[in-house]
């Protein structure tokens, strides 16, 4: 499904973010990517989302080289991927309903679908009661659940979660991981990057470990070993 083929990224000032990275992710997999800050995790995700282009190598999604996509195809491709960020990135002047509805509007869904799906997906992340609140009225954990709801509402093929628990306390962290697991059980591929040893050890799923832009381990039932 996702194939990184010998991908390297060098910035104009000669600093290397990624070096000869190759791996394959199958459909319905739950993959965690771990490593210190600056190991290249975020760069890797950005390249998959087409925000940055590799200096060398190719990235394939369902057999298509994503560097060959034009602007419009890139928009369509991004609609198949849900993204969750460490800093939530909710739109501050839209309420919870509108934040989620926006992603559906962008994907060209009808008003009826939006009215039906938004409350449903909020129930899924247990936020049905906060539907008309604005982001500044929510706790960190709630914000992250809105952000997950937004990521899954278009039923994407892949969910990318970039340090989703980085700003949360242990209890909220546990909740978020449970939600991600549930999403994965329902058949969506999940790619998670994290620092959190506890999260990785409790998941018992595939772990890719990175250091200085290289993959140093790739274990099917991994643990956090750095």
């Amino acid at each position: 499904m996702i194939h990184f083929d010998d991908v390297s990224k060098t910035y104009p000032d000669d600093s290397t973010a990624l070096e000869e990275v190759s791996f394959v992710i199958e459909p319905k997999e739950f993959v965690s990517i771990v490593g210190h800050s600056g190991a290249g995790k975020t760069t890797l995700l950005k390249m998959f989302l087409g925000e940055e282009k590799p200096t060398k190598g190719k990235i394939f999604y369902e057999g298509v080289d994503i560097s060959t996509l034009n602007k419009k195809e890139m928009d369509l491709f991004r609609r198949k991927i849900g993204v969750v960020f460490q800093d939530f990135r909710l739109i501050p002047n839209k309420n919870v309903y509108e934040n989620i509805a926006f992603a559906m509007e962008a994907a060209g869904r009808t008003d009826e679908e939006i009215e039906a799906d938004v409350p449903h997906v909020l129930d899924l992340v247990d936020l049905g009661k906060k539907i008309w609140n604005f982001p500044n009225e929510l706790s960190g954990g709630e914000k992250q659940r809105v952000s997950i709801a937004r990521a899954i509402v278009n039923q994407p093929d892949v969910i990318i979660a970039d340090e989703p628990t980085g700003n949360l306390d242990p209890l909220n962290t546990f909740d978020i991981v449970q939600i991600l697991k549930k999403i994965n059980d329902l058949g969506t591929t999940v790619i998670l990057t994290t620092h959190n040893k506890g999260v990785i050890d409790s998941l018992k799923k595939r772990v890719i470990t990175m250091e200085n832009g290289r993959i140093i381990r790739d274990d099917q039932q991994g643990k956090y070993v750095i």
Partner: protein
Amino acid sequence: MFWIKVKRIIRAGFFSFWRNGFISLSSILVMIVTLFVIGSVIFSSVVLKTTLDQLRDKVDINVYFITSAKEDDILAMKKNLEQLPEVLPPVEYVSREDELANFKKRHENDQFTLQALEELGENPLGATLNIKAKDPSNYESIARYIDSKTSEAVSNSIIDKVNYYQNKDAIDRLTKIINSANSLGLILTLFLVAISILITFNTIRLVIYMSRDEISVMRLVGASDRYIRGPFFVAGAIYGFLSAIVTLLIFYPVTLWLGGATANFFVGLNIFNYYTENFGEIFLIIVGSGVLIGSISSYLAVRKYLRV
């Protein structure tokens, strides 16, 4: 789908305008200044133009004919003159009798002069033609044309004298003043308008800078460029529209207050009357520039953050 998108874009534009209350307010204030400058430029150019027109209207060439000139010949000359491209028709013809009546009226309190006139027995005054040019710079060529007519038939010329050469200095100076006032006004206008547009553009860029995270999120959920830009474009247009309305409201008391002063100072032009009489046109110009400046600034400013 197209109309659903348009509806969503307009709705989102309204919401972002309303919910960013303070930012919207400050952008509107800046835009009001811009539109006020544009409006003042309109008014001052009108004042300048009327003043210059009135001055220009006071300038003309008078051709004095000898007393024995036949009326038919004079009228023929009047017709010739009116056909010249430089001359602003109609050329005014004042007959000998009218000239005498005017003279008597001018001197009705001057018994001595009237008595002298009476003693002469006949009308000593010749008829005149008063010629206005389309442009002050044309007087010279008109005068030359009349001169050529005079020398053509030296023996039986009917022209007594042409007063252009006595007025030449004044006419030349006025031409220069009018021309330089026009070009100076134009430069000043362009300069002021350019500065105020730049300030507005910068303010709106700042507003959109604060929304850069929002734009990047929109980008990542796969919204198309047009769909992201749309609401900013709409909000910009709303800024422009509201600022224009406020500006027009401000002009009402301002012109009312200045109206009397301008009517006295610039003979007869009351800018309050001008404002109310030409309200439709001024409304279109101010609202049009407001909406254009607001929406185009937003459109350009968002472009920077779309390169994700």
